[in-house]
């Protein structure tokens, strides 16, 4: 068995037993990247020498000691580029570590390099990158999902043992589903956002992409926790997320939201998800139908709130202090040339949408109204979680689509996130785990839990995973 295919817990056991060194493990992963990343193109930036140096220095007794981890290009690491896959941040070198990076470093992880993404995390296919398209390791003609497409692809292709992503409307769970790995969006406030370049501040959350559920729990153990530098991070004790793994799920109430099985979805995807629900029932869970009546408004609400916040968050990219600058005759011309040249079309579209939604005369009709509906969506979940412990839904309505298939139609692209967006609006947690292959392409099962319900979500995900073999399937590259 090649070292690059190991999970965190498998690699950790071998490292601790002294069967392999951290350098050997990192070298194996670097070799794998060398071999396949020309096809996958998951990485934007690598520093093999630095990775090996980190491996040599790693203390394998630490929680992630010697484990090579890939970082989405939206999280600041001192001394490394952080372009958010945007031309506008070309040349920017991060002067500080994100909170999660400090945690990973303290836990002994080896930071491999930076993964591709949709520009500023805006997209569902990683096609909106200024630096080229990442391919789905299961079918190189297809997209890996997005926006954390690079992170999902490198984990699926064994080019990293685990990766960090960020999830604003499904950007971890959707690519995890389409690439056949495990992706978790923690509860809003569970993981500090300090150092994550903001797309939509009230929705963004950093989370792990891993090869199995145990790895997801191990990563979460390191990432979670209060940070005084993030006022929205919650001062709440971090449990050992692996403690819930292996616990019986008999008697747990699993809610099935009726709004999440749409007529337009791929019937084979629906079959795979319904089969998974059956398996949970056979493990002793009680399946109950629930309703989230405001679901149909989630996409609309999301595209008002997320773009409004983004229009302000992205205003700082102006060529004055860092990144790319295109000179002009005066400051206004410098702004428009810098931003006109630096941002891609999807980012511009969203900045304009958000600016419009906040404008005098439109604010009440769009932004304010969207905030009210967001509250209704949150209340839907609060009510539903009185009836069930977790919810189960498809992560996406269909499997990975072909490169270019939806790029001309933003609205169709936006619907890829139809099942994942509500969790961000409600601030709750969720994971996607592999639950089938349709035409040799992975299908994801989304398990949602209430705020700070990560333990139960992981417990159910793990029980399901252990009862099936989907997580062991690997793409042929």
């Amino acid at each position, binding site marked *: 068995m090649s070292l690059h295919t190991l999970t965190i817990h498998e690699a950790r056991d071998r490292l601790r037993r002294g069967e392999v060194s951290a350098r050997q493990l990192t070298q194996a992963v670097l070799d794998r990247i060398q071999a396949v990343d020309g096809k996958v193109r998951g990485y934007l930036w690598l520093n093999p020498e630095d990775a090996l140096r980190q491996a040599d220095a790693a203390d394998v007794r630490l929680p992630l000691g010697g484990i090579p981890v890939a970082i989405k290009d939206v999280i600041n690491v001192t001394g490394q580029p952080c372009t958010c896959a945007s031309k506008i941040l070309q040349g920017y070198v991060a002067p*500080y570590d994100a909170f999660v990076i400090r945690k990973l470093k303290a836990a002994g992880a080896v930071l491999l390099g930076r993964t591709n993404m949709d520009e500023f995390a805006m997209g569902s296919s990683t096609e909106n990158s200024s630096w080229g398209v990442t391919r789905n390791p299961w079918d190189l003609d297809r997209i890996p999902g997005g926006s954390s497409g690079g992170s999902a692809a490198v984990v699926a292709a064994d080019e990293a043992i685990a990766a960090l992503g960020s999830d604003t409307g499904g950007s971890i769970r959707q690519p995890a589903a389409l690439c056949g790995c495990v992706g978790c969006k923690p509860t809003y406030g569970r993981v500090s956002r300090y150092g994550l370049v903001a797309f939509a501040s009230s929705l963004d959350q950093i989370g792990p992409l891993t090869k199995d559920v145990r790895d997801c729990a191990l990563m979460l153990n390191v990432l979670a926790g209060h940070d005084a530098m993030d006022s929205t991070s919650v001062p709440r004790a971090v449990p050992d997320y692996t403690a819930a793994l292996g616990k019986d799920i008999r008697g747990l109430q699993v809610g099935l939201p009726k709004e999440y099985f749409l007529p337009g979805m791929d019937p084979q995807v629906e079959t795979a998800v319904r089969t998974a629900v059956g398996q949970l029932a056979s493990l002793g869970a009680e399946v109950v139908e629930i309703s989230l009546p405001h679901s149909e408004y989630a996409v609309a609400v999301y595209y008002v709130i997320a773009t409004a916040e983004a229009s302000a968050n992205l205003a700082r990219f*102006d060529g004055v202090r860092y990144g790319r600058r295109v000179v002009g005759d005066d400051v206004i011309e410098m702004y428009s040339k810098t931003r006109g040249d630096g941002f891609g079309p999807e980012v511009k579209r969203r900045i304009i949408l958000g600016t419009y939604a906040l404008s005098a005369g439109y604010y009440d009709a769009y932004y304010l109204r969207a905030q009210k509906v967001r509250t209704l969506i949150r209340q839907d979940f609060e009510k539903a979680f009185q009836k069930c412990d977790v919810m189960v839904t498809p992560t996406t309505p269909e499997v990975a689509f072909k490169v270019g298939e939806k790029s001309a139609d933003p609205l169709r692209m936006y619907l890829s996130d139809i099942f994942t967006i509500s969790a961000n609006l409600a601030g709750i947690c969720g994971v996607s785990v592999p639950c089938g292959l349709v035409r040799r392409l992975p299908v994801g099962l989304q398990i949602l839990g209430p705020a700070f319900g990560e333990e139960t979500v992981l417990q159910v995900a793990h029980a399901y995973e252990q009862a099936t073999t989907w997580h062991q399937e690997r793409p042929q590259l």
Partner: protein
Amino acid sequence: MNYETVIGLEVHVQIKTRTKMFCGCATEFGAEPNTRVCPVCLGYPGVLPVMNEEAVRKTILAGLMLGCTINRFSKWDRKNYFYPDMPKNYQISQYDLPLCTGGAVGQFRLTRIHLEEDVAKSFHFERTSGVDFNRAGTPLMEIVSEPDLRSPEDAFQYLTTLKEILIAGDISDCDMEKGQLRCDANVSVRPVGQTQLGEKVELKNMNTISGVRRALGYEEQRQIAALERGGKITQETRRWDELAGKTFVMRTKEYAHDYRYFSEPDLMPVIVSDAFLAEIQRGIKELPEARRRRLVEQYGLPEYDAGVLVADTAVADYFEQAAAGSKNPKAISNWIMTELLPKFAENKISPAHLAELVAAIEAGRISGKQGKEVFAEMFATGQSPSAIIKARGLAQVSDAAVVEALCVQAIKANPKSVADYQAGNTAAINFLKGQVMKLSQGKANPQLAGEILARLLGGH
């Protein structure tokens, strides 16, 4: 036609805190450009703001001192506009739920006080511009008045009083030269009796309180003259040019910003608890006007004295410490105003020593003239008056038997003066008193000597 001027002021005050509003950088004036900066106040990608509680505390303190309602729930908003001095191209401010509402400066009502972050400072060179971000993120309080002011003089009075209060509360040093207090004014004119307000003009770039008064004086005349000519006032922003003594158009209404305010998602709302409010209330400083009144009532000082003393909080504090144990607060006040005030910074005299000096003069232990000598030495050395009196052998002789013996001696030696006195020349007694003083080497209590001489010579 007679016109009425209507003025409202927007005052920005830098709050005196050790660190910036949303990061840990020092708030320091005059440092090398861009040396008091970090990723947060430079608006780097991925950073987040953390609220400075001290700035919130001082804003609430200002609100309490100005009689505002303190809003128990307030929140942060983003004010969006592009400018190179604005690191994020949005300013974290407070829009619809400020920390304080209502209140007043003297008779002029306030609309609100909110907290925000200051911007950087731009410098324009011949062909390029530079930005110094040291100031970016300094806690800034915006105090907005109602359009209650009716003259440039009102504005002068408003600003003087406001400044005095903020300094007394240690909320800001209000040094306008350092940009710690900045004032914009909205001004309009209307015919007397008209209820509807005239078109307002916003004035900027006034760098002193008297500059504000001059600018408003110019602007009201400019507007009235325009109306008199049958012209119209357009809503615009004008810049005061101190040297020219005129205002010039900066931008007109078409260029008015749409700031697209929305709630700042990176910060939690500010909840002011009972305990926090009570703590601030305990630390509240007496307003200068109230202190003036109290000094008059409590110490029986003339209005004038109270005004002089209260003008400087440290001087007023000194007075009250000295007057606390004194039977003659007015004498304390006299010493402070005539002797101490011109050189208060170098003063070595403790309040207790000043009270002791006044008591020694009161009790006749030393004369008023000797008191001045003692005071001079106290000022120079910081020694106690009793130590100085003792060392110099200054204590006045008030023992009646001793003084009477000297008086008898003086009478015997000067029969002519005695005869003059008895012939009706009462002034002759002064000569005799002078002789008594001479005999006592200046130590005899002159008042006592006068009384004894009069008795010995037979009264008139």
